[in-house]
């Protein structure tokens, strides 16, 4: 049966007149050039589109599709390699959808009645298969603009048929238009984009009358396609929701204001997804794009209700808030040691609280120890810094440069006065351990500091690896600072 249909189909396609500019990327397309083996070779390739809809029991529906795919594949095989055709099954599918449009101009009723007899019984039993839905959606995209017209008119109306065929027929005439529509099969969001192009394509060619059968099945498939489009768009909304939520999470950093009254309006606007008509679909698609661009402007969080979730604004806000909290808790989990094994918010929060308490207790304990270690409370900055410098240098893994020059460079935000003070104290500190080296240098000696300080700095340079350029600036500033600090 397949082969016979193929032959019929191929017989119809022999006429090259109307197929000059059909979707043919290579441009070398010649109908009569394709040998029969291309059809046969394309046969197994075209079986895979049927495999895509494998859960669908009715094979009858597949046949015209496969025929069309093969038919096109035959065309394609004449120019490109058949492997490329096999590689682009999707493209061929879309091309295949073209074929009922191609048929009417021929006025050849051989194939059409066969297809039509297959289709109506099969159409009645369409399961909501995802693969079929996608294909139906794609098909609907092709002549999406027509469906609204078709729906309004009764089935079997020759005018509607003509409209459809016109829409279909025009598709072939504009290969660019088809390329546009076909080239983005995977994103239903672009329905808004496609519809105007489809409509523009329609008006290009005049009405071509044709048999009613093709339009009938396409109409019914169009009806199902619309439904399919709706359900698929629901799933797509989930993906979009994820994107919007991630954007929203990021943009929320920028604002801390009360979300709920702001979001009420937004969410109500977002959550009216259930009444889905094609007109609304394009609007929502466009609105989606606008919302994402509005995010940086308003700073509002645009949240979309997920599929199967309540669209109450309060629950949406709750969900956003809960997500934020869990995100922060994950962050905290990394901070607090030993929290990785713990699962569950309550236990983890208890751990966090315990950790904070332990840290605070540690601070208190250490301050007590400090008080006992240094009972006179004469914290000599110099001595402390010197010893601490040694400790920090030994203990820390982050600092590779000597302590004091690093300190001088590390605090650009500090006010200048403070910098001078610290530098003077650093100078005192540095000089004190080295005073023993210099021999009899008084601790509180301020005279002759500059030379000593410079010596000190140079010695410190020798002690560790410091980048010369920032340190040069430090040395340049140090003597000046000391000059100011000295009373």
């Amino acid at each position, binding site marked *: 049966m397949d082969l016979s249909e193929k032959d019929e189909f191929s017989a119809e396609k022999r006429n090259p007149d109307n197929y000059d500019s059909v979707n043919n990327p290579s441009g070398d397309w010649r109908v009569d050039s394709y040998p029969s083996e291309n059809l046969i070779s394309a046969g197994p390739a075209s079986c895979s589109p049927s495999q895509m809809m494998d859960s669908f029991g009715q094979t009858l529906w597949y046949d015209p599709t496969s025929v069309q795919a093969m038919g096109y594949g035959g065309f394609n095989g004449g120019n490109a390699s058949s492997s490329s055709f096999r590689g682009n099954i999707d493209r061929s599918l879309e091309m295949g959808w073209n074929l009922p449009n191609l048929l009417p101009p021929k006025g050849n009723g051989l194939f059409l009645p066969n297809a039509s007899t297959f289709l109506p019984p099969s159409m009645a039993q369409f399961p909501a298969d995802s693969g079929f839905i996608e294909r139906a959606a794609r098909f609907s995209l092709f002549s999406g603009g027509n469906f609204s017209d078709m729906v309004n008119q009764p089935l079997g109306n020759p005018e509607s048929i003509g409209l459809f065929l016109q829409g279909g027929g025009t598709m072939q005439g504009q290969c660019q238009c088809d390329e546009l529509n076909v080239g983005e099969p995977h994103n239903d969001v672009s329905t808004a984009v496609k519809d105007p192009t489809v409509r523009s394509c329609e008006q290009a060619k005049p009405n071509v009358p044709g048999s009613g059968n093709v339009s009938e099945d396409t109409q019914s498939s169009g009806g199902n396609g619309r439904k399919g489009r709706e359900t698929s768009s629901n799933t797509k909304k989930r993906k979009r929701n994820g994107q919007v939520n991630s954007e929203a*999470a*990021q943009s929320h950093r920028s604002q*801390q204001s*009360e979300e709920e009254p702001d979001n009420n309006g937004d969410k109500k606007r977002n959550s009216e997804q259930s009444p889905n008509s094609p007109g609304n679909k394009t609007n929502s698609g466009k609105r989606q794009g606008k919302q994402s661009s509005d995010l940086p402007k308003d700073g509002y969080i645009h949240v979309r209700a997920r599929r199967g979730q309540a669209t109450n604004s*309060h629950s949406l806000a*709750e969900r956003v*808030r809960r997500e*934020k*909290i869990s*995100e*922060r*808790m994950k*962050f*905290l989990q990394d*901070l*607090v040691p030993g929290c990785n094994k713990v699962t569950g*918010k309550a236990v983890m*929060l*208890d751990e*966090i*609280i315990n*950790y*904070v*308490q332990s*840290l*605070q207790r*540690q*601070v*208190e304990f*250490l*301050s*007590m120890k*400090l*008080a*006992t*270690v*240094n*009972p*006179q*409370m*004469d*914290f*000599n*900055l110099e001595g*402390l*810094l010197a*010893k*601490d410098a*040694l*400790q*920090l240098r030994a203990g*820390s893994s*982050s*600092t590779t440069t000597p*302590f004091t020059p690093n*300190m001088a460079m*590390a*605090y650009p935000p500090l006010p200048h006065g403070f910098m001078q003070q*610290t530098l003077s*104290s650093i100078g005192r500190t540095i000089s004190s351990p080295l005073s023993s080296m210099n021999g009899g240098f008084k601790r509180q000696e301020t005279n002759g500091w500059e030379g000593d300080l410079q010596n000190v700095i140079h010695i410190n340079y020798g002690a560790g690896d410091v980048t010369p350029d920032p340190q040069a600036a430090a040395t340049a500033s140090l003597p000046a600072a000391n000059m100011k600090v000295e009373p």
Partner: protein
Amino acid sequence: MASADKLINTDVPEKDVFALHFLRSLSNLRTQNPLNSPDKSIDRVRKIKKAAYVSMARAAGGNSRLWSRALLRRAAKDDNKSVRFSRRKRKVTWKISSKRRRSNQRAPVVEEAAERLRNLVPGGGGMETSKLMEETAHYIKCLSMQVKVMQCLVDGLSQK
């Protein structure tokens, strides 16, 4: 010990900053009581502890964090000093009542833990739970840094 999280910024300065601030505050302590040293060790401990917290708050970026701001304000109030803060970009404190009223609807488990956290973290009373978590994270980082500094200091001093 700086984290690079795009969404939540909990960058904490290096250890040296903390050390510097702490030592400076300690030396200020010394200059406060040059002659008469308070005999009671408790007072001393308290002073050191306060100096530790204040220096930690300053090192962590004085006004940019809610907890540090609250800490400094609290410390200044104890000393009867007036603290001057730069103007805040956003107001936080007025949201307490509106948030607390509706806290029943939020997850009660989380909320009671958040209450305990609020008692621990300075300035936690005026924050929403999500903001509280951010502040807690930063606070934990700064606290651990301060603990390290103090530990180094104690070790250095006790090594005499």
